[in-house]
C-alpha cells in the first residue's frame, strides 16, 4: 500500500472508529469484545483497502465487523473477566446509567444474528438488501430475523421501565 493510501486508511479509522465501536457494542453487548472486534475488523479492512470502492467501504467494514462478532461467538470466544460489563465510566447520572443497563439487558435477550440484524436495520439504517449483503444471507432471512427480533423486544420492552418513559414522550 502506498503512503498516500495508508494515510487515507488512517483517516478512515479515526473518522469511523466511534461509530464502529457503538455498532459492535450494540451487537455483542460487551465493550471489550466490541473493541477487539473493531480492531480485528480494521486490520482485515487494511488488507482489502486497495480493492474497495470508497463509496462501499462503510458497508464492507460492517460486513467484516458483523462476521467477526459472529465468529467470536461461534468459537466460544468468551472473555470471562469482561462478560457483559460496561467499561469504567466517570460518575454520572444514576438514572441514566440504570436506563442504559436496562436497555442493554433487553437487547441481550436476542440471539446474536437477530441482534445484528436489528442493529443494521434500525441503528445503521440499512435496507433489507444491504443488511442481507452485509450478513451474507438472503433477504428473507433478514426479514424473518427482523420480525422475530422485534417480537422478542416487544415482549421485554413492554415490561420494562423504559416503555413507561417512552409513553410519556
Amino acid at each position: 500500500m502506498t503512503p498516500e493510501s495508508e494515510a487515507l486508511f488512517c483517516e478512515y479509522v479515526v473518522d469511523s472508529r466511534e461509530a464502529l465501536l457503538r455498532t459492535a457494542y450494540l451487537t455483542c453487548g460487551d465493550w471489550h469484545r466490541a473493541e477487539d472486534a473493531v480492531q480485528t475488523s480494521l486490520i482485515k479492512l487494511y488488507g482489502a483497502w486497495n480493492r474497495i470502492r470508497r463509496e462501499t467501504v462503510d458497508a464492507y467494514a460492517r460486513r467484516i465487523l458483523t462476521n467477526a462478532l459472529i465468529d467470536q461467538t461461534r468459537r466460544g470466544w468468551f472473555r470471562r473477566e469482561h462478560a457483559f460489563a460496561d467499561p469504567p465510566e466517570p460518575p454520572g447520572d444514576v438514572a441514566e446509567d440504570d436506563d442504559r443497563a436496562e436497555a442493554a439487558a433487553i437487547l441481550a435477550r436476542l440471539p446474536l444474528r437477530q441482534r445484528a440484524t436489528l442493529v443494521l436495520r434500525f441503528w445503521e439504517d440499512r435496507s433489507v438488501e444491504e443488511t442481507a449483503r452485509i450478513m451474507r444471507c438472503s433477504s428473507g432471512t433478514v426479514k424473518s430475523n427482523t420480525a422475530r427480533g422485534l417480537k422478542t423486544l416487544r415482549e421485554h420492552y413492554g415490561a420494562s421501565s423504559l416503555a413507561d418513559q417512552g409513553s410519556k414522550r
Partner: protein
Amino acid sequence: MNEQDVQQLLAKAASGPVVADEVDPRAILLAGRRDAARRKRIAAVAAGGAAVVLGLAAAVGIPMALGGEDPIAAGGAAPSDLPALAADDGFLERLARSDGSDCPIPDGQSEEQRQAAAAYNQALYAGLAELGAAPLGGCLTTRPDYDGFYYSDDQGLYMLEESVAFGGTASDWARIGAAVWDTGGVDYEAQMEDEECTYNEGLTCSWEDTPAGRVLLIEGVRSDFANPDTESGGSIDYPSVGVFLFRDDDMVVSLTLSLRFASDRDVPTADQIAALAATIPVGQEAPELEQPTVDNLAADLADAVEAAVPGATADTDGAVLVRLHPDIATYGGPVYGAKATHILFITAELPTGETVRLSFQAEHLGDPGDDPEAAAEAAAQCGDAECETGPDGTGAVSVHRTIEDGRSVLTSLAYSPLDGWLIGVGVESADGAEAPAVDFATLDAILGDLR
C-alpha cells in the same frame, strides 16, 4: 413498540462515553502490514503467482429439502451432475453440538431451560478451551446420556456429565460432573463440606472468599470407576479437583474433574476450576436459542476463504447443502465422500477472474478403533484418490486428497478421534477440469479457521 421505540432503545443502550482512542490507527496499520506479509507466505500459488479469488456464480440457492432417499438436483453452487440427496434434518444441529457428539437432548425441557443450558454449555466449554480441553465426543451406552447441561426434573437442578480431552489427545482426559441448583435459602455449605471432605481421606478441602461467592476447593485423590460407562474394571483412585461455588443469590455451582492423564501434563488447579465455575452465567437471562442454518455455515466458509486468500471474494447466494447419494461411487466424477457425507458448496472468484467452487464436507465417523489414520483415509475415499495422511500436530489426522477423476479437486481434511468428526475444505475449478491455483497450505488455513 414502533420503529422509533427500537431506535431509541438502541440509542439508549449505546449512549455513554466511548473510549475511541483505544482503536489506534497506527497500531492497526502495523498489524495490517504484518498480516499482509503473513498471508503472502501462506497463500503461495502453485503456478502463475496469482492469488485465488472466489467469484460469484449468481445462481439462486435451492432450499434444503428434508429427508428421503430420492435423488435431488443439488442446484446452486453444487456441480450439476452431483448425485445428491436432501440433507438430513438435524445435521447442522449435530455439527454445532456443544460436546461434539450426538447424545440426545432430554425430553420435557422447557424453552427457558434449554436456553439456560445452552448458555451454561457455552461458558463451560469456552472456559475449558482456555485450559486446553476439548469435548471428547461419545455417548454412554448403559444409561441415558445427554448433550451438555440439562435440567433434571428428578433432582431439581441443572446437571452435566461429560468427558473432555486435554492437549488434543485422548490419552489425557477427564470426566466432568457439574451441577447448578437453587438452595432456596438452605445453608448447604456445611453439608457439602461434610459429605465431600469428612469421609474422603484422600481429599484436601479449603475455603476461599471470592467476588463470585464463597468457594469450597477440593483437591486430592478420589475413587472413581475406571470405565464410567460400563463400570467394568472396578474403581481406581484418580486425581480429582473440584469446587462448590456458593453464590450470594442462593445458587450453587459445582464442578468436579476426575483426571486420567497418561502424561505428566499439568493438571488444572482448584483455583482455575473455581474461576471457571464463576463464569457459568447463573441468574442471567439467557438469549433465545438460535438454530444453525445453511446461510450461517456458508458465511463462515466464505469468511474463512477471504481471510486465507488475499483478494478473494466469495459468493454465498448459491450456497447449497446436500448429502451424497450412494451413486457418488460410480457416477464418473469426483468421489467427495460416501452416503453419510454432507457437503456444502459455494463459489468464489479469484483476482485473476477464475471462478472456483469451494466445498465444506463433514461426516461423523465415531470411534476410530485402533487406527485413526486408516479410518480417516477410508472415509475420505482415498481408494479413489491420491492422499497424503499424517498427524497435524493438534491431535487430529490430516488428509490431503487430490482427485483427478473428471474434475480435479483438492481437499484438506481433518479427522478428530476425540469427537469423531471428519471435516474438510475442498476447491475445484467451476468451469473447467484443471486444478485451480490453490494449494493445500491455503486449504489448511481455511479449514483451521472453521475448526
